[in-house]
């Protein structure tokens, strides 16, 4: 267990003990602390390498596809704010994930796309250093991937 996790846990304990906001909600029967974090894919987000992350997502060895479009700058001056957009032209795209290979944890964000929503997501990510960035798309039960290298002038993860 890492220090970060322990801290997070300690904070959570403090909150529960102190009947903070969550405690109040729990008392009101609206939410339990477990519920609040239950859906988050901890294993995938804490995986360190790209391969481990893909495994945790159940993606195995995804196929490279031109139908997955990863739109991002070639060079990011500020690694703290790198705009990334992923569009999938594959039918029945159910899931979209953004992975930064050389970040401490590769998985940055993942999205579940319900029917009626376009598999096209734009967000901003942090990058510690120049790295390959991957867009992973689950379409009709299969995984597809696209990659692009983004050069970072100023890292966004240090202090």
């Amino acid at each position, binding site marked *: 267990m890492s220090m970060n996790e322990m801290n997070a846990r300690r904070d959570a304990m403090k909150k529960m003990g102190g009947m903070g906001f969550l405690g109040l909600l729990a008392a009101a029967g609206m939410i339990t602390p477990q519920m609040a974090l239950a859906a988050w894919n901890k294993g995938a987000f804490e995986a360190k390498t790209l391969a481990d992350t893909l495994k945790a997502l159940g993606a195995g060895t995804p196929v490279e596809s031109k139908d997955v479009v990863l739109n991002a700058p070639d060079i990011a001056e500020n690694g*703290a704010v*790198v705009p990334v957009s992923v569009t999938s032209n594959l039918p029945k795209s159910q899931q979209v994930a953004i992975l930064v290979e050389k970040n401490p*944890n590769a998985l940055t964000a993942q999205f579940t796309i319900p029917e*009626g929503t*376009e598999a096209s997501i734009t967000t*901003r990510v942090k990058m510690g250093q120049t790295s390959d960035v991957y867009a992973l798309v689950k379409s009709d039960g299969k995984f597809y991937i696209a990659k692009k290298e983004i050069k970072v002038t100023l890292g966004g*993860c240090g202090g």
Partner: protein
Amino acid sequence: MADPMKIRAANKDGVTEVKILMSHEMETGQRKDASGAIVPAHFITEVTASWNGKVVLQGEFGPAVSKNPYLSFKFKGGAKGEKVTVSWVDNKGDKRSDEGVIA
């Protein structure tokens, strides 16, 4: 509780584009403060957007999403005056829910 989100939603040709700007520190847990102590991780873990009671996007964030996260997406449907509700939960259990009106 955190500051409100900025939510913009616009419908064009039957498709609603939603742009969300959340107000959150998104602390990674990797950074050290001036005294060398690690600043504990504090980041949004889950985001859900819904329209007419139907979930139109569900997202999970890690700490590598930028501070004050931006998110945009499109869904089929939505009419002028209808509402899009966005809510998030962070790793400390804080949460926030806001509404945007489709223009």
